[in-house]
């Protein structure tokens, strides 16, 4: 079994449901072997070049792995096609929880800062209402953007079904359609964007989210916070960015890189926990004296919830892609 067949099979099963991948991969491999063996006929010791040529012919006869994958799923036309589906699910897993947490935190901060006497019912009502709206908008935006992207990536190939199969596909295209590599690169780019946004948080003025009147448009972060804490925060983000750049350049990941990422995530969470529990990190004008401590504790809980969820998500993705 050559690397070419392995890549082909990976490209087919990469679009299929996780539960059926192993079985279908084994069957396609057995088929390719049978077809190659049959075509090589009675030759006792076929030359490497001969085997390679026949293997290419067989793969080209099986055709574009994306189309073969579609035959297996027998799926109707989708808004989000198999090319973009892993990215779509990945984006939802990342963006929706992040939007929910940001919305909850923002609402709590604004409510504490603007309400002289805090009522739990009012706080819950405002927070849940705003968060549901934010989640629906985020869901719609992600779906529309990736749906549009999917159509431009697809190049209209879905229109070829159920008509005659396109004969334009060649084995040479296989190298350009490394599904796993594309997925890793897309995730790395999104992670880098996310890290840049995180790095900008200490610099973002409150006026940008319509609460500038609370502290005269200063930042969300306490101006009195020591510069060492900020430099430490950016240093952690820079190290995380280095890992993402390595993934982007290599188009692959490894257990060592993942373990390094986990260690960095946990170290960053510990760093932020110490910062939040030992001093006033949020701008004093954004917090009422009675609610400041509660806000800091909620933020710490949110940080650890994100870190734990991130690790589970990362290991699940790593296991699924092995």
């Amino acid at each position: 079994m050559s690397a070419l067949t392995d890549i082909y099979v990976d490209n087919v099963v990469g679009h299929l449901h996780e539960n059926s991948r192993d079985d279908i991969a084994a069957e396609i491999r057995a088929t390719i072997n049978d077809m190659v063996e049959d075509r090589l006929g009675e030759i006792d010791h076929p030359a490497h070049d001969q085997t390679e040529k026949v293997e290419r012919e067989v793969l080209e006869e099986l055709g574009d792995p994306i189309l073969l994958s579609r035959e297996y799923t027998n799926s109707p036309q989708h808004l989000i096609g198999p090319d973009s589906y892993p990215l779509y699910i990945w984006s939802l897993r990342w963006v929706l929880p992040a939007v929910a947490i940001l919305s909850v935190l923002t609402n709590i901060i604004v409510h504490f800062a603007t309400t002289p006497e805090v009522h739990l019912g009012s706080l819950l009502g405002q927070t849940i209402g705003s968060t549901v709206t934010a989640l629906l908008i985020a869901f719609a935006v992600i779906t529309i953007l990736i749906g549009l992207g999917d159509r431009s990536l697809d190049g209209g190939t879905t229109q070829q079904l159920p008509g005659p199969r396109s004969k334009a596909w060649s084995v040479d295209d296989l190298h350009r359609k490394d599904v796993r590599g594309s997925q890793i690169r897309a995730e790395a780019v999104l992670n880098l964007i996310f890290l840049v946004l995180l790095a900008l948080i200490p610099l973002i003025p409150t006026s940008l989210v319509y609460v500038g009147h609370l502290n005269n448009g200063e930042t969300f972060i306490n101006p009195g916070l020591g510069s060492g804490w900020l430099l430490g925060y950016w240093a952690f983000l820079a190290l995380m960015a280095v890992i993402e750049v390595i993934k982007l350049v290599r188009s692959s990941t490894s257990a060592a890189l993942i373990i390094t990422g986990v260690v960095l995530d946990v170290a960053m969470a510990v760093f932020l926990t110490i910062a939040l529990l030992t001093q006033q990190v949020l701008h004093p004008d954004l917090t009422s004296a009675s609610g400041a401590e509660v806000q800091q504790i909620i933020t710490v809980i949110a940080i650890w919830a994100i870190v734990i969820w991130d690790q589970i998500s990362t290991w699940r993705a790593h296991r699924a892609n092995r």
Partner: protein
Amino acid sequence: MNEDAEQALATHEQELRRGTVVFASLVACRQPQYGYSLLTTLTEAGIATEANTLYPLLRRLEKQGLLSAEWNTEQARPRKYYTVTTSGAEVAAALHSQWLELNTSITKLWKEGTP
């Protein structure tokens, strides 16, 4: 035949073949068959089939309960063998009846329409 007509013919032929391949696969799988042996059997019987159509089709027929599948690991190379189930055999028999009726109908129509 112009290019558009050829394109339409290719589309309709493929639709026709798809239906035929389901029926032919159920008939051929009365004896256990692995994917490539079935492909060869169908081709030798004059039913042109593409591997990339046949394998997903076998899986769908298995899901529908018309074929049962079992990996045979006793041979040098593990292979998945498909065999028609009881309900698959009933469906095959019904399709066979339909096939004969359609053949009669089409033959009659063809004769009536031929000047």
